């Protein structure tokens, strides 16, 4: 289809695979990418319908929970936090990769981020949306959510800021807002090119509104560049802070297995790990179905696999530290929880799923062939996500199920509604993501043209210089 397929991959200056394999002009590159949006593939409609039907399961489960009461979930004393909080932590963790890829790698000038950053940012937004549902529903009376915000009220009370729950509200809402602004700012120039290239009048009008009247003058670009870089710069510490705050929900409690200083970095590493896995889960089918293998190249797969391996090892290290500090503390409850209850207790199965999926799976990426194989990466990414969900479930449920007094022990079992909510958020997430693929240029066009220009200039310098 494209002229690009004929070009053999030439290595970059750093000896790595090329980040862009496109031989055409700027116009060809642009139109090729816009075409994905203006002429959606045939599977789009049934896929949208299917995920929408799945989302109905979520809406029905939410309606049932809200109208009947929180008792329809399986959690009760002693296990007061179960699926709801597990799903929250899991989804928000997935949401970390987007900003990590866009912001952190932007600061490190990793050029392979360009083709996948918007993709990852959109994933972030939609994952945070799913995550936000769970604490809201978990309140039982979600219509009183604004009680968490400090506002002068007739009850003459204020939120208690020494509680980690208020930190959560600040962290998650800030993260959602900043991710949205970052994503949208990057999108504006591409919406402008959509506006200028769409044929139908209504479509031009619609994109014109969202493009905000972008003109692309040198002054506009200057301000945009500085503003975008700055947002990236301040979003980077934000990524690290969000899951640290989430981990404080556990770490400041006195339960065995929760009360640990390793939690913030441990949670952040796990979050980036699962987020990268989710990017791969979505990216590998999309690059194939949309035939953009020359823009999202094998180099991207290779780099992402290396990131999985690195973050996977940080997670392994965290598990080891957790076990070691439990033993070294000499505290019988800590030792029991981490060394006996989790690996051999009633939820032992979950524990071994965690070890198999999170610790063993990424080890295949020591081999280059696995790193460059889309199929291997895709399967591994699914396993990592299962493993990360299981890890959160294990951490949250086991500590509550067996606390200090055996007389107050109890087990947790999920209900159908718990399962419907988890399944429903997955469907709703995919639905939102498909809408994004359908209406928005999902590969950053202006940034890619800039990359193309820079790659061409460098090549010329190497030839002549």
């Amino acid at each position, binding site marked *: 289809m494209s002229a690009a397929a004929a070009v053999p991959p030439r290595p970059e200056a750093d000896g790595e695979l090329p980040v862009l394999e496109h031989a055409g002009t700027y116009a060809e590159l642009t139109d090729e990418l816009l075409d994905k949006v203006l002429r959606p593939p045939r599977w789009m409609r049934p896929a949208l319908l299917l995920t929408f039907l799945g989302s109905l399961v979520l809406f029905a489960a939410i309606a049932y929970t809200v109208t009947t009461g929180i008792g329809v979930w399986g959690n009760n004393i002693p296990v007061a936090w179960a699926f709801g909080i597990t799903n929250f932590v899991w989804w928000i963790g997935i949401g970390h990769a987007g900003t990590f890829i866009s912001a952190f790698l932007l600061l490190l000038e990793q050029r392979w981020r360009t083709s996948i950053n918007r993709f990852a940012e959109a994933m972030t937004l939609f994952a945070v949306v799913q995550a936000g549902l769970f604490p809201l529903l978990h309140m039982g009376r979600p219509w009183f959510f604004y009680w968490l915000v400090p506002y002068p009220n007739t009850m*003459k009370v204020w939120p208690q800021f020494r509680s980690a729950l208020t*930190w959560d509200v600040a962290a998650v809402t800030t993260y959602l807002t900043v991710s949205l*602004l970052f994503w949208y700012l990057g999108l504006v120039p591409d919406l402008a090119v959509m506006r200028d290239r769409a044929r139908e009048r209504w479509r031009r009008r619609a994109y014109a509104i969202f493009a905000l009247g972008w003109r692309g003058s040198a002054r506009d*670009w200057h301000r945009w560049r500085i503003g975008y870089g700055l947002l990236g710069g301040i979003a980077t510490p934000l990524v690290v802070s969000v899951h640290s705050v989430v981990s404080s929900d556990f770490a400041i409690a006195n339960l065995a297995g929760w009360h640990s200083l390793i939690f913030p970095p441990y949670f952040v590493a796990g979050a980036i790990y699962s987020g990268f896995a989710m990017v791969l889960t979505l990216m590998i089918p999309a690059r194939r179905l949309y035939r953009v293998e020359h823009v999202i190249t094998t180099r991207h797969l290779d780099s992402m696999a290396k990131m999985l391996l690195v973050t996977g090892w940080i997670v392994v290290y965290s598990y080891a530290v957790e076990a070691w500090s439990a033993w070294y503390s000499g505290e019988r409850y800590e030792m029991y929880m981490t060394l006996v209850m989790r690996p051999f207790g009633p939820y032992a199965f979950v524990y071994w799923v965690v070890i198999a999926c999170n610790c063993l799976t990424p080890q295949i990426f020591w081999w280059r062939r696995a790193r460059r194989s889309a199929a291997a990466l895709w399967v591994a990414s699914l396993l990592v996500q299962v493993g990360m969900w299981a890890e959160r479930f294990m951490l949250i449920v086991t500590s509550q199920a067996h606390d200090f007094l055996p007389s107050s022990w109890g087990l947790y079992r999920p209900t159908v509604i718990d399962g419907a909510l988890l399944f429903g958020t997955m469907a709703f997430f995919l639905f939102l993501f498909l809408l994004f693929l359908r209406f928005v240029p999902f590969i950053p066009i202006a940034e890619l043209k800039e990359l193309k220009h820079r790659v061409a200039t460098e090549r010329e310098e190497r030839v002549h210089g």
Partner: protein
Amino acid sequence: MGEVIIAELDSPERVVQAARSVRALGYARVEAFTPFPIPELEDVLGVRRTRLPRLAFVAGLGGASLALLVQWWTNAVDYPLDVGGRPTSSLPTDVLIVFESAVLFAAITAFAAVLVGSRLPRLHDPLFDLPGFERTSLDRFWLLIRDAYDDDAGILDEAQALLDAELARLGAVVTRARLTEAGA
């Protein structure tokens, strides 16, 4: 007033060269429109560095102070609650929301500053009426010379001929147009 010269070029290198020549001939009110950012152009056209980062910094400080003030006043002054004898005003537990607020305020300010600085959002701009402008978002690079016909701009008469020759050398398509209003 309102009459401008438009030079359309087909590569980022050429638009930088053309801009350099145009500026050297004494033209001052020169704008470039490109499909992607070209940092070299900013120096050539004398784009002043934006004060956006300073603005965002001040906003971040403001957000941080506000968050600290709200937490201290609500939890230590207006509604003190004794939790296990711990201090009602405790910086370590306040610092997370202080950080989040700083980031939130700085980010919103940075975003708003990009839009306001570029006079966005706008529904229309006289430039959009110029034929071919829509290609500047695709693969064309425009130089727009606003003071080509200004009598008081102090540009030498010879400049006009030199300008035409230079733009022709770079393969630019040159047109003259009249903008209905001074689009800033």
